[in-house]
């Protein structure tokens, strides 16, 4: 009988574990539900707002702040020219484009120099942030506001910092080399900054998926939807993340991510915060650091998200690259959270410390792990007998709710408040694919995110490489 005392009662473990998981899931459902509701009325307010009038004055105003657009490029030879071409015709009074060639191994630099007829110039760079060495600076002879920096490879963060050092204007925008920005997006994303007398120090727009859109000369001519379920599912995911996640958070100054693909920052503040850090999720990490700086300085500055201006980007179309991307994102999330763990539950940092950080840690970061354990327990309980069949069904229903149901709701929210997909068949496709999320897509991404966690524990770093298709149809 001595033996009994040492053996673990597995049956109890299963029961406790199951309840824990179910309660956690109910918690997630309530949190996501709250965010969805918060966003609901915020975005609908702007539905059908004229696309031109609110920005007409800004276009001609002297108060409109000049912006440096930083485009870090690494092996972007395929798509770089069309993206830059689209940048040259944006609707904005004064701006410069700084392309940072981060030691590309292909002919990215040569293509740029040739295409834009660049000449070497003697621009002196003020090293406000330490970066890898800049080898040369070129200026285009046909577009005088286009500059190309050639530097030693140092990673995206390093490239951006070099761009910041070289920039002349008080605001900068970081843009991925393969993204397409809508012409009016800059006015829209900068509007809160301009109109708030610099109270807003950073502003982010939405990312949408370009796959399936008709693109000409680096511009989205017609919105479209890919036919591949994997891509459609990603579109739904982005809608969910941006529309429900960010709108609600931004309204209350809880925003922790200004997406790396499209955001405008005050140079002064970013330099003071130390520039971008070399980490996998450098965009989020910078925003957390800015929030930290704001709180430590006890000033009333804000970071906002504007749902309307859109940056279109290429999404991975194969499982292989999607998996890589998701693992990397999850590692990046942890990196940022860990680096700023001091803020967690720290009242000194206000709602960022008490609400945002815990949300990102317990729900966004740990969520997949707990879900995975849930799936495992599900499998175990099915095997051990019908007593736990109810657990299995409850688990399944709950995951249907915060998976498929919420994604379907996001699709409907987008239709009701923004209506970017004008074709009926696209709307229908989005809705029905989102219905299936819980059955295949979600378990997959959960598994990959946990993989990312595991890899992190074993110290893997880096970005991996994605084979670029380029965002131009020409």
């Amino acid at each position, binding site marked *: 009988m001595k033996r009994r005392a040492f053996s673990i009662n597995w049956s109890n473990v299963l029961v406790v574990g199951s309840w824990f998981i179910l309660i956690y899931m109910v918690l997630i459902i309530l949190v996501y539900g709250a965010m969805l509701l918060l966003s609901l009325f915020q975005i609908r*307010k702007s*539905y059908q707002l004229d696309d031109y009038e609110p920005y007409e004055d800004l276009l001609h105003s002297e108060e409109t702040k000049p912006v440096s657009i930083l485009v870090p490029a690494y092996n972007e030879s395929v798509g770089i020219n069309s993206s830059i071409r689209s940048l040259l015709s944006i609707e904005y009074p004064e701006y410069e484009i700084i392309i940072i060639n981060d030691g590309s191994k292909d002919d990215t630099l040569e293509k740029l120099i040739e295409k834009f007829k660049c000449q070497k110039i*003697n621009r002196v760079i003020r090293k406000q942030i330490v970066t890898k060495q800049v080898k040369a600076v070129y200026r285009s002879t046909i577009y005088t506001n286009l500059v190309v920096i050639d530097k030693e490879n140092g990673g995206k963060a390093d490239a951006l910092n070099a761009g910041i050092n070289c920039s002349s204007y008080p605001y900068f925008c970081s843009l991925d080399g393969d993204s397409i920005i809508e012409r009016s997006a800059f006015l829209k994303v900068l509007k809160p900054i*301009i109109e708030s007398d610099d109270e807003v120090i950073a502003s982010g727009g939405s990312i949408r998926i370009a796959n399936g859109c008709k693109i000409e000369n680096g511009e989205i001519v017609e919105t479209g939807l890919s036919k591949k379920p994997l891509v459609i599912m990603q579109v739904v995911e982005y809608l969910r993340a941006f529309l429900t996640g960010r709108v609600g958070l931004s309204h209350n100054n809880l925003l922790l991510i200004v997406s790396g693909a499209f955001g405008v920052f005050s140079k002064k503040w970013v330099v003071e915060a130390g520039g971008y850090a070399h980490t996998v999720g450098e965009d989020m990490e910078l925003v957390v650091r800015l929030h930290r700086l704001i709180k430590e300085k006890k000033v009333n500055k804000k970071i906002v998200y504007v749902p309307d201006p859109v940056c279109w980007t290429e999404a991975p179309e194969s499982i292989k690259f999607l998996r890589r991307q998701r693992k990397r994102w999850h590692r990046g999330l942890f990196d940022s959270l860990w680096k700023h763990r001091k803020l967690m539950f720290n009242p000194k940092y206000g709602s960022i410390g008490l609400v945002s950080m815990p949300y990102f840690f317990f729900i966004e970061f740990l969520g997949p792990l707990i879900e995975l354990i849930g799936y495992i327990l599900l499998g175990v309980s099915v095997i051990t007998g019908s007593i736990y069949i109810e657990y299995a069904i409850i688990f399944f229903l709950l995951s249907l709710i915060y998976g498929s149901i919420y994604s379907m709701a996001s699709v409907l929210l987008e239709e009701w408040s923004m209506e970017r997909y004008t074709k009926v068949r696209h709307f229908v496709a989005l809705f029905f694919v989102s219905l299936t999320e819980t059955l295949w897509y979600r378990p997959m991404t959960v598994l990959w995110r946990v993989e990312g966690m595991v890899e992190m524990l074993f110290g893997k770093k880096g970005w991996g490489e994605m084979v670029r298709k380029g965002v131009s149809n020409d």
Partner: protein
Amino acid sequence: MEVTFLSLFMVFVVMLFILISIFLYLLTKKVANNQTRAKINQYKEAYRLDMFQFLQAGKAVSFGNFQDDQEKFIACKELLQEYANVIASEDMKERINDFAKDYLTSYIQKELKRRRWSLRMNALYLVEEFEMAHLTNELSRLYNKRKLGVLEKTQLLKLFALFDHAEIMDYLKNNTDDLSEFALMDILSVMTEARVEQLADGMNDLPMRFKYIVVEVIGKKQLIEYHPLLRNLIIESKEEIELKIRAFKAMVLLGMKLDSDIIEEALESEHWQLRMMAARLAGVHRLEVFKDKLISLLSDSEYAVRAEAAKAILTYKGGAKVLQRVVTESSDPFAKDMATEWLEKESVFY
């Protein structure tokens, strides 16, 4: 356990049902909207030439019955808006405004009462675009009735300023604490000169925020008769640096000269904005007496100051030679860089 399971199942079913209903509703709306939009676009293309000829020469339009049909009406409204955004001719602008007054007034009156913010804003933009001063009463009603957000309030005040509403000064003095300086600037820049002068004359009683803005507007609207006011502000503002900077900026815009000792003090100020403004002033008035000071400002820590200094030097006789000498003889890389940049720009023009 059974209860939990059943109630959860019910929750799920209810949610699914609600979503599918909303989906079907949105779907039918979308199909209908797409058809309407296609029709509107068709009408727009059919009316485009007619509309243009009417605006250009007053030729009578052929689509006379458009008021009865929703889609035809929207087509006309949108065409009018499109033309209003691109047309510059006074005659055509007048015809546009008259057309809007005759046909769009009741539509806009209705839109101003809508619950959704974006629709009211669109209506307010139309009022601005078509200069519909006759709707002032409706605007007042809107202003007083609702709890207004910043953007809506700003747009309304801007319209009151544009149409020189009697209450505009009162509205500005009360209840504008939540408006940013940018918004106030927007409003004041469309005010009549008489009103701005009213504000300028009462400058001393204004709150600081308003002082900044009035000073800026004096500069923008070129109210030259107020340059003594600006000069006094520059001399007297010891601690209010921001006010001094703005007054300086306005002086530059007015194109008026300032006393040499004031400029000299500013060139050596610890505030870079003053150094920048002073350098600009030195350039605008070609005050060669400051040449040496400007050369040393080519090494200033602020990019904007260095740029103004270079620009100013170029306005002097032999300025290009001076910059050339900086390029060859200076030991400061920033000074050389700035001099080179401006020499390059100079050669582009010739």
